[in-house]
């Protein structure tokens, strides 16, 4: 007999296996939901993993209050469609202090509203495992990340002291306060994600599709004016351009690309024909060499 599973079906089965391990081994897991395309795939896989049961853990969205409005709308739509428990967490201390990406700079803002917000959220609910949608192909330091990645009580990652991971056996043992970040789509590439979205007709935020949108050119990036908190600097002008986003985050930090790709096949086609890697659209990675690695040690995903 010779039946070969296609690469997407193999990846799907592996992700489902990982999710079931986490659900079975941990007392209080959570899935971190960023609303982006990788989260969309994770959510879809979670639904499959536990069907016909409901997803047996909550999803948590760390809302920095600077997300695109369409992301929040989409999140609420998904909540209806996939029927999951949603927790939204915001670092209220940061909000009180008025921390924002314009005056505080991307590094400090990300640290307070994203990394700190995430840690606070995890501490508040005492989660012992958290699913993340990171992929090993995204960035060099992530290529060495485990599928079950151990975090200390302070949520720190120690790249020198990782547990060896063999076969499909994942060590889920933690002491009180410690936790595991689990990455079920570690072995997917950006292309796999798009192909799977296409194959399975998974809904994604409309911002991924091209449309005429108001943008401002800043530091070589096209920033969308999503609400009136966006302050124009001298010389900046709002232009109407056909743009889309390859990655979604906080609107003032996420660069749009000029594009006319308005369907899924067109997006994939465009991606295959361009030669700029995905995280290029994110301001936070440019700070210094190895910046992602440092952020991860501090607890960023």
């Amino acid at each position, binding site marked *: *007999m*010779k*039946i*070969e*599973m*296609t*690469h997407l*079906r*193999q*990846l*799907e*089965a*592996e992700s*489902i*296996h990982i999710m*079931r*391990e986490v*659900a*079975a081994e941990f007392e209080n897991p959570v899935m971190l939901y960023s609303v982006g395309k990788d989260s969309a795939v994770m959510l879809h896989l979670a639904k*499959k*993993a*536990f*069907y*016909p*049961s409901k997803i047996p853990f909550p999803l948590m969205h760390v809302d920095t209050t600077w997300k695109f409005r369409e992301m929040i709308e989409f999140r609420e739509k998904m909540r209806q469609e996939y029927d999951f428990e949603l927790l939204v967490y915001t670092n209220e201390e940061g909000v009180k202090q008025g921390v924002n990406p314009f005056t505080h700079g991307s590094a400090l803002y990300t640290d307070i509203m994203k990394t700190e917000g995430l840690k606070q959220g995890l501490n508040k609910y005492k989660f012992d495992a958290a699913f993340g949608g990171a992929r*090993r*192909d995204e960035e*060099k330091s*992530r*290529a*060495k990340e485990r599928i079950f990645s151990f975090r200390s009580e302070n949520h720190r990652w120690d*790249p020198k002291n990782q*547990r*060896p*991971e*063999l*076969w499909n*056996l994942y*060590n889920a*043992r933690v*002491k009180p306060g410690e936790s595991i970040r689990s990455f079920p789509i*570690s*072995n997917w*590439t950006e*292309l*796999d994600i798009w*192909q799977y979205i*296409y*194959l399975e007709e998974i809904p994604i935020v409309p911002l991924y599709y091209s449309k005429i949108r108001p943008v401002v050119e800043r530091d070589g990036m096209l920033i969308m004016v999503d609400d009136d908190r966006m302050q124009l600097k001298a010389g900046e002008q709002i232009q109407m351009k056909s743009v889309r986003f390859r990655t979604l985050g906080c609107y003032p930090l996420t660069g749009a690309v000029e594009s006319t790709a308005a369907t899924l*096949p067109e997006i*994939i*086609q465009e991606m*295959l*024909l361009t*030669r*700029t*890697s995905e995280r*290029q659209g994110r301001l936070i990675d440019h700070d210094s060499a*190895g910046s992602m*690695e440092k952020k991860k040690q501090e607890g960023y995903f």
Partner: protein
Amino acid sequence: MAHQSDLIAEDIAAYLKAQEEKSMLRFITCGSVDDGKSTLIGRLLWDSKLVFEDQLAALEVDSKKVGTQGDEIDYALLLDGLQAEREQGITIDVAYRFFSTDKRKFIVADTPGHEQYTRNMVTGASTAEVAIILIDARKGVLIQTRRHSFLTSLVGIRKVVLAINKMDLVDYSEDRYHAIVEGYKTFAKDLGFEEIFCIPISALKGDNIIEESERTPWYQGPTLMHHLEHVEITNNALNKPLRMRVQWVNRPNLDFRGFSGTIASGVVHPGDAGVVPSSGQVSTVARIVTMDGDLSEAVAGQSVTITLEDEIDISRGDMLCCTEQRPSYADQFEAHVVWMHEEECLPGRSYLLKAGSATAPATVTALKHKINVNTLQREPGKTLELNEVGICNISLTKPISFDPYQENRNTGNFILIDRFTNATVGAGMIDFPLRRATNIHWQSIDINKQSRAELNDQAPMVLWFTGLSGAGKSTIANLVEKKLHSLGKRTYLLDGDNVRHGLNRDLGFTDVDRVENIRRIAETAKLFVDAGMIVLTSFISPFKSERNLARELLEEGEFVEIFVNTPLEICEQRDPKGLYKKARAGELPNFTGIDSDYEPPENPEIMVEAGTKSAEEISEEIVAKIL
């Protein structure tokens, strides 16, 4: 990221359709530090057009800054992920890389070739179907080559690519190539490989990687990429008997009870008979449930949820199997164990063993011998150290279902976990079940512990005194026994020195012997408890693991850990037997507190602080507490 296909630009829908049919290959590259492994993988990514423009820009900058190729691009820098490694110039862990062509998606486990990293290679190879073994054409088959080949074979990889690299540095010599190939094949004939595909390459110059090289006209075979795209990876697991370990019981409501898991081997259909070895209960597969609808067939590799016709007893860790060829179901087996941690493996110590979804406490009962991974020779040993491979007998506290690893890679593997640090300390491949496990059964006895305890009119228990030498354990234990005795209790005191004169006279003071010493005492204490006695033990018992082992042998409430917490300075001052003096003079190696660790209990039932009360008062209090 441009795939070669013109379809992308011309007919994206047709392209996507074709891509959906791609297969996947996981492979590992092994070689020593200078064999050009990173360069080869960098080249595969580069030539399959997977390097983006921004990555290229970064690579050019990095090549100038830390590169080793002068002004040329240093492909290896594409791979080195972590900053510290970049500076050291070597990769120190396992990293996974991805590239794809129109035929296949590839996952490459990139593992370091440095002498001390057997652990990483075994980790990377555990999921690989093919191994590329790199050889430097100038150096030929080295010790490392032998080691990598042995480990490749050990983890069950049957298809090997022998890539003879740096051909540019030997003038693309055909003779040199053939000499290496012949040498390798002679060496590898006993390793059980099904296929050894040999190819001359230069990762740096790109010869025979993607395109056939004009500089090796004498080589007629396919390029490396062509081979990787076409090497047959028939799903071997498909032809094997059905095995599925239950990961999660799916119970959305009272009307549905499904068993979720990944099919480890074989094929299953509704109507097939299935058996659960732990209970021996047999049922019939009713449905194979997925969100996309019920399946009429599911095969190895698929993650599914199965429902059965009958209500039988199944939970996480159980295995659903076909009824004809059943797996072994045993609590003892022999296995190849690769040690993965700085802290050595101690036979007798209790670890957690995880095999699939089944987890159970496990002990290495015997280290039969070690295998020197360089010479493949057997060597004797008492412990297993980091990066060593040993043949061990393993005993579990409860039986699990498994197959020999060489017969079934998915159901014959396990990891060992340290019970205190939770570190993954070992990886194992099961050879076969031990017959003892199937032939020795518990003799059932009519008079039991309870009836003996009732006759003695007491609750049997162990009072486990632990603490440094000279802490006062024996003094206090002795007083406690006297008081119990005068109260009419039936007691027995096991004393460290006395036991070493008899039962444990063959044991010394190394860590291994200390573990075995305590194991025997714990088992002896258990027998006394079974006889309805109150047992007092007075041993340093320095390791948490072994005290915990003793605790687990007994029932809840039967084990009373008494920590005699006297500081080292005071013990050393007292030095009743003159042992500290000897130890300080270097005449007593492995002396606890001096050059061997004492791990204090975290939650002892009773804590005795030295110097605050007299031994008399302390023993009064202990008696009051336990009765």
